[in-house]
């Protein structure tokens, strides 16, 4: 209930009871743990995957089985390290840069829904906000590069700036492709629409969203400055790139931010393309949704409804973690590109491809309506548009949202789409 609060004002209105404060604190701590603990798991994963790919074992000793405590041992080591600041550095900027990265990566989880209605701020333009917040992370990297007073760092920072300025364009356009299919920027609504069989996932909505998923994933990998796009670090040429001069906790803040933003972009991918918290199997999905709405309106057990949401959050986390795994896998498989190749890939290939996908996605429903008489290629399973949407808005969390009658998801009106495409393409 707390987490379906539609606005900050409403959040403070329900602030009356102590039980809500306690519930809010518990959930906020859980959210911090998504940010703080997931890097530990992902760093361990990175080590093990890279070990397997390079035909070695990876960590085995610390913590017994599979070296699962290795990340914790590293964390203790990093906390103990001396906090250095080079004499040539602009100390104020140098010290504050890691916090910008961390704050930006962490704030993104504020609008990311983990399950049906499980979102800290259910904003109407959630996708726009999350992209805006994630775009702040680059500033910390640039500032770290600039203020270190070292040429390696400066080169890393400059590369990162050039890379991010170019890659933000295809990232935004690609994430708009499923938005055209959904007709909403609200991440919770977009996730709820993909309920039912996995053919309802926006990845399978039309050929353009299918390609857009892969383009988005490539661009998102570049956006998190992961190999083969990790030009900002490029340890073989720039020592450590933007973090050359950092040590200890400030250094690890960059990496916590990096892994958290990897999880965030993969979470966005799973909501936009892969059905979010839906299993992709209609009977299971329907049972989970029924349990949630029964728990919310009091006709069923609230604990069962909560459990259904936990299962949803687990499915979401599994999808997002799989995305992170693929990014790790890519890192140890592909060689690093040169900076000119990175920019060429973006401006000459990814931007035109994503513009083409955007245009195609606007035209697809029009063509399909005139050819087949309906706007999706599959028979809509389980009244996806009407039913799924209503329940997303009213069923969960007990907050009934009044919405104006809007254009039906299944039946896209050609006129409105044309106007939209003109505006955004330019």
């Amino acid at each position, binding site marked *: 209930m707390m987490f379906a609060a*539609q*606005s*900050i*004002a*409403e959040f*403070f209105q329900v*602030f009356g009871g102590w039980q809500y404060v306690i519930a809010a604190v518990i959930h906020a701590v859980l959210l911090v743990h998504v940010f703080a603990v997931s890097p530990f798991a992902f760093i361990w994963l990175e080590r093990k995957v890279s070990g397997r790919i390079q035909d070695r074992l990876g960590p085995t000793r610390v913590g017994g089985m599979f070296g699962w405590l290795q990340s914790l041992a590293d964390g203790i080591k990093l906390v103990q390290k001396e906090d250095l600041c080079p004499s*040539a550095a*602009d100390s*104020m*900027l140098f010290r*504050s840069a890691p916090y*910008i990265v961390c704050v930006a990566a962490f704030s993104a989880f504020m609008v990311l829904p983990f399950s049906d209605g499980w979102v800290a701020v*259910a*904003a*109407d*333009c959630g996708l*726009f*906000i999350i*992209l*805006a*917040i994630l*775009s*702040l992370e*680059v*500033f910390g990297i*640039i*500032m770290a*590069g*600039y*203020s270190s*007073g070292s040429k390696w760092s*400066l080169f890393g*920072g*400059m590369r990162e*700036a*050039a890379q*991010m*300025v170019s890659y*933000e364009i295809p990232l935004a356009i690609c994430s708009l492709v499923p938005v055209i299919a959904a007709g909403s*920027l609200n991440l919770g609504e977009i996730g709820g629409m993909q309920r039912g069989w996995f053919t309802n996932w926006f990845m399978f909505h039309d050929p353009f969203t299918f390609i857009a998923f892969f383009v988005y994933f490539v661009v998102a990998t570049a956006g998190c400055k992961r190999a083969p796009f990790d030009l900002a670090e490029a340890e073989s040429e720039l020592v450590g790139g933007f973090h050359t001069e950092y040590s200890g906790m400030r250094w690890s803040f960059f990496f916590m931010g990096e892994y958290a933003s990897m999880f965030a972009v993969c979470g966005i991918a799973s909501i936009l393309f892969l059905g979010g918290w839906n299993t992709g199997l209609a009977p299971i999905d329907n049972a989970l949704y029924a349990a949630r709405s029964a728990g919310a309106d009091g006709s069923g057990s609230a604990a069962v409804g909560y459990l259904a949401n936990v299962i949803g959050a687990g499915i979401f986390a599994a999808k997002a973690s799989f995305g992170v795994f693929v990014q790790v896998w890519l890192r140890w498989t592909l060689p690093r590109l040169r900076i000119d190749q990175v920019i060429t890939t973006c401006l000459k290939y990814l931007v035109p491809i994503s513009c083409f996908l955007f245009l195609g996605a606007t035209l697809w429903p029009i063509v399909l309506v005139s050819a087949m008489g309906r706007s999706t290629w599959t028979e809509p399973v389980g009244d996806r548009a009407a039913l799924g949407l209503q329940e997303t808005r009213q069923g969960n969390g007990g907050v009934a*949202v*009044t*919405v*104006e009658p*809007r254009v039906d998801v299944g039946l896209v009106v050609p006129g*409105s789409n044309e*106007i*939209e495409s*003109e*505006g955004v393409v*330019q």
Partner: protein
Amino acid sequence: MNGESFLFTVFALATCLSALAVVFSQTVVRMAFWLIIALGSTSALFFLANADFVGAAQLLIYVGGTLVLLVFGVMLTASGPYLKITTSSGEIVMGSCVGLLFLLVVFASLNGVKWRDPSPETITAASHVVSTGNTLRPLGLSLLGSRPDKDSTTDGDTLSPGYLLPFEIVSVHLLVVLIGAAYLARAKRRAEC
């Protein structure tokens, strides 16, 4: 003091103090850093006022776009390690004159609004926004040329035009700018070859 006004105070103070820091710091990149704090806190104020879209646009355009370009430009063009700007006394006088004039405009426009007893239309519009927290849908519809918030209150004969025309003008303007930038940045063929 409830939670909301507490947060408002925090972010308003952060905005003002870091804006002052922008004025009084000498290094360009430090100014950019304080500007991030100022603009970020401004967008937090927008979020507090339920204007999600404006807040996110503020972050994306000013902090994620303009400031990154600013620092990028400083990195590419600076000759020394940390570029400094010293303001002459003439510039201080000019700047404070412009600032004072702007303050007058803000003061006058703030006085022009009846904060104590707003009109019933304002109250209905605001209560709708506060109860749902969703400002994006009416905003999008008015950019497409229909004003559901206004047209529902009038009798239906006079429809409000919305913002379709300004939106299209801005789009064409952006297109012109893009073409111009591409023209300026094109690979120039030398005259003698």
